[in-house]
């Protein structure tokens, strides 16, 4: 390295001549001055280059991790294809393609369809229950009700008339519904177009009230569904109370080990698992800001305790804090599968209606999940009593609850994975 060498001479005059005009380093220090200066520069230069190289390697690692976790593939791949091809099929399968986009607990998609040209049978896939989170399968049947509603909504546009029979096989609640099909005129119900636009929105909502007219319109959706009702909680004080109750229920759920484990079992952190299983809760569907969502994917899978804490905190803020209103769907008997299925149909209608009117909806079933768990364990019905106080005065029981409001961002519109029709038909 020529630049680091010191002129080999004992003559000061000569040394000045050879170093002054050409050498890049000029230091009038002692005889060893230039050498030290240049060595330090050289050292720093090499260090900078080595550091830059290390950063390039690290960036490569981060890039590969981003690729492996689908950071650039949000809403893409086979797990999300059902949202794009939902109206591409013909015949009875077109109805199933709409049904599988329905709301359902923890995105378990606990449904199996048996399809023939004249009839579709819907069965509950009990292997896909959420365990201790839904010990009496309340939410499972509500989710099946949602699927039934989508299926019936899709019948008209595909030239079918339907005759629905809930729980057609006595003593076999697994057989949730039978839908007989016959040819009919093509009709397009208003809610049908919203099927691919409906998504559970877990983000913060605007602090803007939901108009009374909108509440009335949604309540009217229950008109032809026997024994179902919709109750609104809109006052600030009442919203604060039910919000606090939901946070307390979420906290209690995370402190129940079995509920926590069963809850986390449906969380999908790994991109390959999402694409393979096509179900469950994902980071994308949590409604986190885009940057936060990416960071969550880049880090290693988080622990159950971390997920529990995140969920409790997220329930408190933004979910409870920014709920413009809460809706509670009530039925005479929340343990009755027939009532649950009808309640599910109403829930899906409301959700589709919000999608078509610029509103967002998020499901908030912490209270009933704890109430059912208390009942299963024979524990003091802390949340069981709370649910009764919420709606029993009106002679009915709380089936499910949701929050509603105007979305503050578009982050809550990301897709959830779905199993295609080929994987849910027998």
């Amino acid at each position: 390295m020529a630049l680091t060498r010191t002129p080999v001479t004992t003559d000061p005059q000569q040394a000045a001549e050879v170093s002054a005009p050409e050498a890049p380093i000029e230091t009038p220090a002692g005889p060893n001055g230039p050498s030290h200066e240049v060595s330090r520069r050289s050292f720093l230069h090499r260090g900078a280059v080595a550091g830059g190289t290390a950063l390039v390697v690290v960036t490569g690692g981060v890039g590969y991790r981003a690729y492996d976790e689908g950071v650039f593939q949000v809403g893409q791949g086979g797990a999300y294809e059902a949202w794009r091809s939902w109206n591409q099929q013909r015949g009875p399968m077109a109805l199933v393609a709409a049904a599988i986009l329905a709301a359902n607990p923890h995105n378990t998609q606990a449904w199996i369809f048996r399809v023939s040209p004249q009839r579709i049978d819907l069965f509950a896939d009990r292997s896909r229950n959420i365990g201790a989170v839904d010990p009496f399968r309340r939410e499972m049947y509500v989710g099946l009700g949602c699927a039934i509603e989508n299926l019936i909504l899709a019948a008209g546009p595909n030239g079918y008339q339907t005759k629905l029979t809930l729980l057609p096989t006595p003593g076999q609640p697994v057989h949730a519904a039978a839908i007989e099909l016959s040819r009919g005129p093509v009709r397009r119900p208003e809610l049908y177009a919203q099927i691919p636009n409906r998504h559970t929105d877990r983000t913060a909502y605007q602090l803007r009230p939901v108009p009374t007219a909108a509440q009335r319109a949604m309540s009217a959706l229950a008109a032809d569904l026997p024994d179902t009702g919709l109750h609104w909680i809109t006052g600030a004080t009442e919203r604060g109370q039910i919000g606090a109750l939901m946070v307390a229920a979420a906290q209690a759920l995370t402190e129940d080990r079995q509920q926590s484990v069963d809850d986390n079992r449906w969380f999908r952190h790994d991109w390959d698992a999402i694409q393979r299983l096509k179900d469950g809760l994902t980071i994308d569907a949590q409604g986190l800001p885009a940057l936060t969502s990416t960071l969550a994917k880049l880090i290693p899978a988080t622990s159950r305790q971390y997920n529990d804490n995140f969920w409790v905190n997220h329930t408190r803020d933004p979910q409870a804090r920014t709920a413009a209103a809460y809706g509670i769907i009530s039925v005479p008997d929340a343990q009755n599968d027939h009532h649950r299925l009808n309640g599910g149909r109403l829930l899906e209608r409301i959700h589709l209606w919000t999608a078509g009117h610029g509103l967002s909806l998020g499901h908030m079933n912490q209270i009933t999940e704890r109430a059912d768990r208390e009942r299963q364990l024979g524990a003091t019905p802390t949340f069981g009593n709370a649910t009764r106080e919420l709606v029993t005065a009106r002679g009915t029981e709380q089936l499910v609850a949701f929050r509603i409001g105007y979305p503050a961002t578009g982050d809550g519109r990301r897709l959830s994975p779905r199993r295609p029709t080929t994987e849910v038909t027998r």
Partner: protein
Amino acid sequence: MNVPARRLTLDRAAGRLAPVGAVLGVLAGIVGVAVGPSIRNVVGNKLDTTTLGFATIALSAIAVAATFAWGRPGGSIGGRRLGTILALALPGAVCFTTIGQLWYPSGVLLLGASILIAATTTRTELAGAIDEPRWLRGLIVVLGCYYVFLGGDSHGSARVAGVLGAAVICAAVLAARHSARLARTLLVVGALPFAVLTWWSVVTPLAALLILAIGLPALHPNRPGAPRAEAATDKRPALPDAQPVH
């Protein structure tokens, strides 16, 4: 130059292991592309076996190229040793995550070869490699390759910005021989759009930052990393230590 016998022996061994590992790697990638979905448990339960198979082939091709360069005259001395180590070790390590067990033989061979070369590479050679101006330009090209990879994984305008951005970044490195100003302009034009479009991805803004932080000074005419600077150095009169001492 006296080359120790141990170094010759190890280099010769590396020269035999590396080609076998690289060719096996290409074959493994082809198998991943062809029948990956049928042997998911073997290929690490990856879903997109086609893309990962092609990635394996591409990375193995780098190792193949490195083995060719290694065998050429002067390919195993000086800073080129570091280049060969990296060209064997990086595919050797990364491809364990692309096609799972199919990569085991290739990975072991390539990593083994790179270790053999590294074992007898001197600090001076490593330092010399890092000091070479080509090193910084190489880093910029590597970052451009990241853009191709991540752009290819993206969709819509981001994909276009990523792939085209990589081409423009590489063009910037080539243009530096003629015009530093043009080179720096191309570097900015190539790096920024993809990073802006995918700002939330963390990795593309980081890559863009590195492209500019490394590239702008490296392609500056008065910096050691710049091609023009090399030319200027070449024209400089001999330094004092090269002159005869009276």
